């Protein structure tokens, strides 16, 4: 059973397009996160939701909009994609804020 899953695994798209990445966790956790890993492998948090409420919103362009329809899902929608958005995006979840985070396999986004 996959604990934290993401779709798609790979996403290749043109500049200016709008795309979404989906994340689901079956661990019964209350908190979910989105991270961006750049080409140098640097990992930085983008957003965090606790019980469907936004609790962390880092300095991220407003082209990025997270949506949490329920506790088990946290999707990431990106408008007007730019070359610099190319990265690996990881979803994670934890039982509560501050507890151990479990990561999904990542979505590799390439913007051409």
């Amino acid at each position: 059973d996959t604990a934290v899953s993401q779709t798609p695994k790979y996403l290749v798209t043109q500049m200016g397009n709008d795309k979404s990445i989906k994340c689901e966790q079956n661990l019964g956790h209350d908190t979910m996160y989105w991270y961006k890993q750049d080409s140098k492998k640097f990992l930085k948090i983008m957003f965090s939701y606790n019980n469907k409420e936004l609790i962390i919103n880092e300095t991220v362009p407003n082209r990025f909009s997270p949506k949490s329809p329920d506790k088990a899902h946290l999707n990431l929608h990106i408008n007007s994609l730019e070359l610099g958005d190319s990265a690996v995006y990881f979803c994670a979840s934890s039982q509560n804020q501050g507890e151990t985070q479990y990561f999904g396999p990542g979505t590799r986004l390439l913007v051409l």
Partner: protein
Amino acid sequence: AQSVTQPDIHITVSEGASLELRCNYSYGATPYLFWYVQSPGQGLQLLLKYFSGDTLVQGIKGFEAEFKRSQSSFNLRKPSVHWSDAAEYFCAVPFGNEKLTFGTGTRLTIIP
């Protein structure tokens, strides 16, 4: 500034040799500490964590880490590495508000 430092960008070790990966964190971190491993093209897997109690923590795959408050360090060790340990290793520490901050990672190469 809140930071997590992994001073070694790349380490090469012979198979069977011992390993130590360094991690230091700046003032302001909560005393929760994590090590994650990322194999090529994969997501992040939790190796071990320290929340409280014994400062020597055992993890999966034969790894251990020692928390030294006086040195603000949480170094990862393994007595004898295997070729399958080749991966990227990340130290992570939360700063206030449970925002998990990652180090820049250490890439481990194993030579026969």
